């Protein structure tokens, strides 16, 4: 039985980190209907800033995590201001193309640094012995990842539901023109959406970097790996990202634990999430919790 519960715990851990990585996508889409394809690069940037502060500037690791989130918050905000603000009102596809360009620019910049082609590792700062109960174990790093995810999800959920800025962001997402007509600053909302996405990406980068080590190739791949999670969750739903992330994590662990290597099946952990995604999208084209828009013509 501990085998089963170990898979559940691992699935929740992996799923939470997927959800954390997916948050940035959701935050930007929720307010601007734009898919930021450079999200993986921002995740990597956040992780590298965190590492640089910890190892090169000798900042205590918890503070460097926080600082990396703040720095990435402003970096993402600047990126929006420099590259994307001029595209307000332009077709969404143009903005998405710009994010592809942005991806190449950030890639290029990171390749100019040692992070582009070397492996790094955060110094251990949590107890190395795992927490074990009834044969089920979880490392402190994984536990930290789960806690950060749920704290951030909680904060963002409150922010979107209760705060004036959050409500403005939702209003802009629904209708930019109508929002402007009631005095909401659309450029400011877009800037904030990118900034908060940057903040969550830095958190995701730091958590992933602590688990896998810092390898640019691995880190920026998470921008793509979590794509099924974002789609399954419904693109603009924070709750959707969490639920879809955990579903994906659990499916991967159960597929790997029970299917792979049996009955001639291999690689199901990689394939099953996509099969599920296809099936669910056939039944629910807007994802699990996505906004179902009805256009009157």
């Amino acid at each position, binding site marked *: 039985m501990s*085998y089963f519960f*170990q*898979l559940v715990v*691992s699935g929740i*851990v*992996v799923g939470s*980190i997927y959800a954390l990585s997916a948050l940035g996508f959701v935050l930007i889409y929720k307010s601007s209907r734009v898919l930021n394809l450079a999200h993986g690069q921002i995740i990597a940037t956040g992780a590298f800033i965190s590492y640089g502060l910890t190892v090169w500037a000798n900042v205590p690791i918890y503070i460097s995590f926080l600082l990396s989130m703040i720095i990435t918050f402003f970096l993402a905000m600047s990126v929006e201001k420099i590259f994307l603000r001029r595209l307000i009102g332009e077709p969404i596809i143009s903005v998405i193309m710009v994010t592809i360009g942005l991806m190449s620019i950030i*890639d290029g910049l990171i*390749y100019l640094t040692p992070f*582009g*082609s*070397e*492996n*790094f*590792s955060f110094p*251990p700062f949590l107890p*190395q012995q*795992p927490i074990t109960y009834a044969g089920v*174990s*979880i*490392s402190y790093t*994984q536990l930290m990842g789960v806690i950060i995810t749920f704290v951030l999800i909680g904060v963002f959920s409150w922010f979107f539901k209760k705060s004036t800025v959050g409500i403005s962001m939702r209003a802009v997402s629904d209708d930019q023109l109508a929002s402007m007509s009631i005095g909401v600053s659309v450029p400011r909302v877009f800037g904030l959406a990118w900034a908060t996405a940057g903040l969550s990406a830095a958190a995701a980068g730091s958590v*992933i970097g602590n*688990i*896998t*080590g810092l*390898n640019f*190739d*691995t880190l920026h*791949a*998470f921008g793509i*790996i979590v794509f099924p999670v974002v789609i399954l969750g419904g693109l603009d739903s924070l709750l959707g990202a969490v639920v879809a992330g955990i579903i994906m994590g659990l499916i*991967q*662990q*159960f*597929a*790997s*634990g029970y299917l*792979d*290597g049996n009955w001639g099946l*291999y*690689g199901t*952990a*990689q394939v099953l999430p996509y099969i599920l995604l296809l099936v669910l999208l056939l039944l629910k084209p807007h994802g699990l919790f996505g906004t179902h828009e009805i256009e009157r013509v």
Partner: protein
Amino acid sequence: MKTYKISIWLLVSLIAFMLAMPASSGAKVYKLGLSLAITGPTSDAGNPYAKGVEDYFRYVNDMKLLGNDTIDCTIRDDKYETAITKRNFEEYLDMGIVFYLNYSTGSTLGLKRDFEEVKMPVIPASFHAGNLEDSNYIFLPIASYSAQAIGLAEYVVKNHKGKTPKVALFVHPSAFGRGPVEDVQKAVAAGLGMEIVEVVEHGKDLDNTAMLQRLKSKDVQYVISQTVQSPVAVMLKDASRLGLVAKTFGEKGKITFMGCHYTGGNDLVALAGDAAENYYWTTSYIITSEPGVGTDAQLALAKRYGRDDKFANSHNYANGVMVAQVAAEAIKRAKTRGKEITKEVLYEELLAMNGMNAFYPVTTVGPVTFSKDDHQGVDTLQLYAVENGQFKSVGMPFIPEYTGKIK
């Protein structure tokens, strides 16, 4: 005014001519090309590899190891994309290269026909045995991935206590990773006494708990990896958390982790930390945690050209130095014989590199031997294991027996 213009033109032409002239009359420049992943996937291996090649050729030129002749090796990034590698190679051909250094398994397989067509001697960084099938011009610098994996499997069989050892292969989802799988299976079919329980192709996994638990439930005691360091590090950390890592080789009820060339080295220890302890790794290179003449020379070379400790101690830096050594040695031997340096001549020089003419680069645990029937340079392997955060030699260099038996 016209005379003034003509004078200026003459002066410019004279300067251009002087600049274009070699330093000493009669000195030749041999053009070589290297295309590899300096950025993109596997660039953590490609970058130090490129520096190794660059530094050794600079050394050859600076120390005048070829007299007044020099090597001009153009190094270009291909981002691990075969299409870019092909473009680089074609441009190198236009530049008139006489020797080509390639990198990835995919591009080596993809360009195999091109190499045959232009009869270009090639040394790739990929040790995939399949590179040599239906090929005359590709030369592996060291023992193939197949030989490495079989060597590790033989070590398991020789040192395992109890019933037939159960082994899983943990491989990269690519031609690079799958390369040795079939040959290990052939070795088992040919009598190597072990059972391959599973071949696991990993993804970009955050957690290998399910996979490790599954292997444990099937009594797998050894995992042989053919991939890069990062996924191995994640697996080792998970195994450590689950208390599955064997403290001694073959410890019952635990798993002993092992791997081929690109899974190990200092980066693995940096990424996996304490979880890397007791990881067994094989390569044909001598590594700097086991100091000797070769590693002293490697560190001196890196220091001479201002490389940091990380590059200097990388086994992939040694890897790059070694292939450059082989290319330079072939040129040197051809020159000694008074031959003009062409790709055909260098090809013949490589084929003659055996017996009394074997090449000892000191960066490897055995000599480089090539012949018409043998395109695998160093046949010898060394087993290393992590002890207190450093790879240390285990036993003497060896040549796997079953690689010969499955041919």
